[in-house]
């Protein structure tokens, strides 16, 4: 790496303390290129500035986190103008209402015409300006200021201003609304905390300092597309009004949707002349449709049942690192899991590499029973990975007074590979004398009312649940593990942990975040309230003549740069 100190000094001048801190971390090698991009973009450093700093440090173009089994979709085929792209996605489970959407199909529809303040790019692993040009925190990250992109218009011709942004976030954060984003904003942002400083500036005053707040208003928070002030969300489905590169052609409930280019789009105009989404209610017909030539792209799929596609080199597969995972909770307040040694013993019985190979066809990575993993730069990678050790598991069980093991029931849901995972967990645990009886339920039965006392998910002695991808681990750290966490199925109550999480959420600089992450990881390994066996990659497939797809690991699909050759 050849470094240009003069250039670096020039770039440093006028930068904030925090920005200079990240540059120091990059120069000393404490921050990798990828992590520098990610952290720098979080505190609002622009892409050209980040690129110039990297260049001054002798590093080249930004890294990408995607890998492709048979050629990268973003590079291979030459871009062609025109044509219709046909995409298979999961049918939206309910009305496409930006306030209430909570499913993969619905959120993929939102991002076809709607845009966010910030785009969290999985391909580049960095935040990119979308409707906000820049953003910056105050000293303790309790107030964030966003400068909006000028010259943006909605599909009805109306100019986008701070009034629209304020309206959108006040609706999303209003506890009186049926807003899905409340699971993100509760305890973080109140409607009164959003205000317009001028027509192009919005200020968010948070309930508590939050170093990762830009992620919460980015495309990660899939409900947060900016809509015109006064929009009736329940009727949004009839217009799909937004600021995006595509606008609504037609939408037919349960059947499909078409979108056409928005001629007054602020950014690069789309290459395609139309996109046509076809809705499916299960995965096998989607894959058959791609193989049968009925669609060009499968928006998002899971490895279970897709081996034919994954092993066929004539399709392009885009693989995204994701924080999508499964979580096995053990009731810390119920025998036999009141003793942490028993919980550790269960964790030591698992053969994680075999699970990743067998259940995920290798499209994932092993996890270490904490919400920190490869998706998050703040993860302390020096914490040793837990590996299968049956004799240690037996020793721990003996020490805890269960030399002959014990029997327990595991409640779980009928969803993707989860029933198979539950079976593998039961088989692995049997080696240490633990007999796990499985109770696999439909999702509605398993989740119940999703409140304590009314849900097998939250009340089961052992319970195995799915968690979707997030750009930052905040939700995974808080909801299922803090003392007041609404999804604390393990009933884990630990004051040290609660305080560490509070510090982690407030921390702005990466070094502090990583230091606290290490402490959290070690504490969770010691206590093992939950087991996270693996991380699951996000997968998108297409025919070879499609290029420029930009999927995210939460099932969004950006088609601004997509093209299809003949």
């Amino acid at each position: 790496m050849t470094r240009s100190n003069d250039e670096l000094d020039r770039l440093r001048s006028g930068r904030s303390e925090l920005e200079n801190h990240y540059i120091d971390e990059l120069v000393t090698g404490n921050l990798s290129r990828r992590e520098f991009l990610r952290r720098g973009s979080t505190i609002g450093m622009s892409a050209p500035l980040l690129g110039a700093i990297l260049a001054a440090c002798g590093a080249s173009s930004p890294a990408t986190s995607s890998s492709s089994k048979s050629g990268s979709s973003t590079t291979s085929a030459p871009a062609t103008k025109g044509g219709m792209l046909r995409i298979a996605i999961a049918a939206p489970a309910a009305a496409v209402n930006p306030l209430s959407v909570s499913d993969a199909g619905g959120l993929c529809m939102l991002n076809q015409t709607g845009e966010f303040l910030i785009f969290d790019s999985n391909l580049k692993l960095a935040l990119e300006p979308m409707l906000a040009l820049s953003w910056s925190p105050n000293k303790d990250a309790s107030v964030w200021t966003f400068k909006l992109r000028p010259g943006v218009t909605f599909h009805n011709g109306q100019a986008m201003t701070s009034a629209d942004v304020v309206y959108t976030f006040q609706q999303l954060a209003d506890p009186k609304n049926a807003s899905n984003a409340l699971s993100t904003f509760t305890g973080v942002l109140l409607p009164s905390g959003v205000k317009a400083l001028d027509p192009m500036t919005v200020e968010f005053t948070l309930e508590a300092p939050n170093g990762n707040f830009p992620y919460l208003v980015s495309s990660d928070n899939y409900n947060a597309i900016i809509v015109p002030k006064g929009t009736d969300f329940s009727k949004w489905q009839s217009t799909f009004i937004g600021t995006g590169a595509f606008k609504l052609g037609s939408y037919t409930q349960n059947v499909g949707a078409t979108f056409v280019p928005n001629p007054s789009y602020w950014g690069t105009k789309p290459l395609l002349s139309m996109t046509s989404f076809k809705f499916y209610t299960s995965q096998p017909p989607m894959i058959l449709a791609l193989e049968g030539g009925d669609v060009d792209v499968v928006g998002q799929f899971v490895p279970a049942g897709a081996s034919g596609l994954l092993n066929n080199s004539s399709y392009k597969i885009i693989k995204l690192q994701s924080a999508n995972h499964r979580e096995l909770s053990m009731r810390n307040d119920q025998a036999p899991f009141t003793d942490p040694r028993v919980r550790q013993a269960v964790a030591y019985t698992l053969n994680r590499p075999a699970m990743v190979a067998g259940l995920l066809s290798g499209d994932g990575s092993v996890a270490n029973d904490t919400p920190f993993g490869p998706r998050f730069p703040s993860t302390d990678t020096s914490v040793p990975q837990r590996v299968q050790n049956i004799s240690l598991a037996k020793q721990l069980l003996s020490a805890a007074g269960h030399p002959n093991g014990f029997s327990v029931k595991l409640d779980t849901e009928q969803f993707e590979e989860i029933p198979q995972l539950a079976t593998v967990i039961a088989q692995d645990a049997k080696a240490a004398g633990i007999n796990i009886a499985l109770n696999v339920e439909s999702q509605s039965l398993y989740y119940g009312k999703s409140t304590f006392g009314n849900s097998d998910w939250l009340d089961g002695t052992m319970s195995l649940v799915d968690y979707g991808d997030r750009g930052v681990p905040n939700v995974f750290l808080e909801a299922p593990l803090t003392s007041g966490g609404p999804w604390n199925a393990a009933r884990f109550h630990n004051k040290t942990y609660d305080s560490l999480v509070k510090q982690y959420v407030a921390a702005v600089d990466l070094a502090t975040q990583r230091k606290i992450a290490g402490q959290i990881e070690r504490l969770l390994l010691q206590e093992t309230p939950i087991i996270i066996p693996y991380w699951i990659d996000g997968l998108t497939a297409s025919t070879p003549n499609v290029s420029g797809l930009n999927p995210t690991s939460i099932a969004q699909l950006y088609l601004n740069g997509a093209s299809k050759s003949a």
Partner: protein
Amino acid sequence: MITFILKRIGLALITLWLLSVIVFLLGQILPGDPGRAILGPLAAPSAVAALDHQLGVDRSLPGQYWHWISSFPGTSYTYQTAIGPILTSALGRSLKLAVLAGIIVVPLGILAGVIAALNVGRPLDKIISIGGGSTTVIPEFVSGIILLVVVGVALKWLPITATAPAGSSFLTTVKYLIMPAIPLVLVLFGYIARMARAGTVEALDSDYARTATLKGLPRGVMIRRHVLRNSLLPTITVVATQTGYLIGGLVVVETLFRYQGIGQLTYQAATQKDFPMLEACVLTIGVVYMAVTIAADVLFSLLDPRIRLKAGQ
């Protein structure tokens, strides 16, 4: 005859009302609530409560039922839009598929049954009986997947989905529906052929058939005039009772072939606890089923004068 039909319609209306009450009460047993189903398991309880209030599902049970009756068919909880258009387009699609399957399987099944009966005990009879029995037990998801993989993906003879592009001609629509109709034909063929065979064998063995033969009627005329009229009666009943399945029971076929029919719609409404949609779907299937049953009764009476006489008495 008119009195007979009016009586049947009156009974059908009472049955439909009872059906609506049963579905409403059974729907309460289903786990979860509409707000939770729409917002997902991880939504904040306050958001779920707000949505449940908006939808009116926090009202008393009689209150909910009365609200539904008074605004029938009403608005879907899940899709937040009027039920009428969604339901009619789904019913239209289901009817197209059912009619196509019916047009193929009814004549085919009856023909095969009659041929088997005329060849009782011979190899042809055994082939038809065993073949029909075998296709009936193949579940639609098995035959459907095999068809998709072989005919759709490998040979590329027929489109892989059942939904023809908007504005397609009649023939294109039929082409898209052939593959999804085949699993239904396979399931129903055995039933219909078996009933037609049994009815024909019985009729052939009857006194009136023997009399007709003895008085010198040619075999073809005897079968057409005397045997078929009687042997088809149980077959009509079978066909009529399968209507409910053909209209509302095709969830698997609709899923496999991406066809948004009323079966899928009913299933989704039940899983999402979308009560107005569920009621509307079940009642629609009920109406179609009863209409077909009444039509079958009328046909029955036309074929069998004894029934006409009884109704007239």
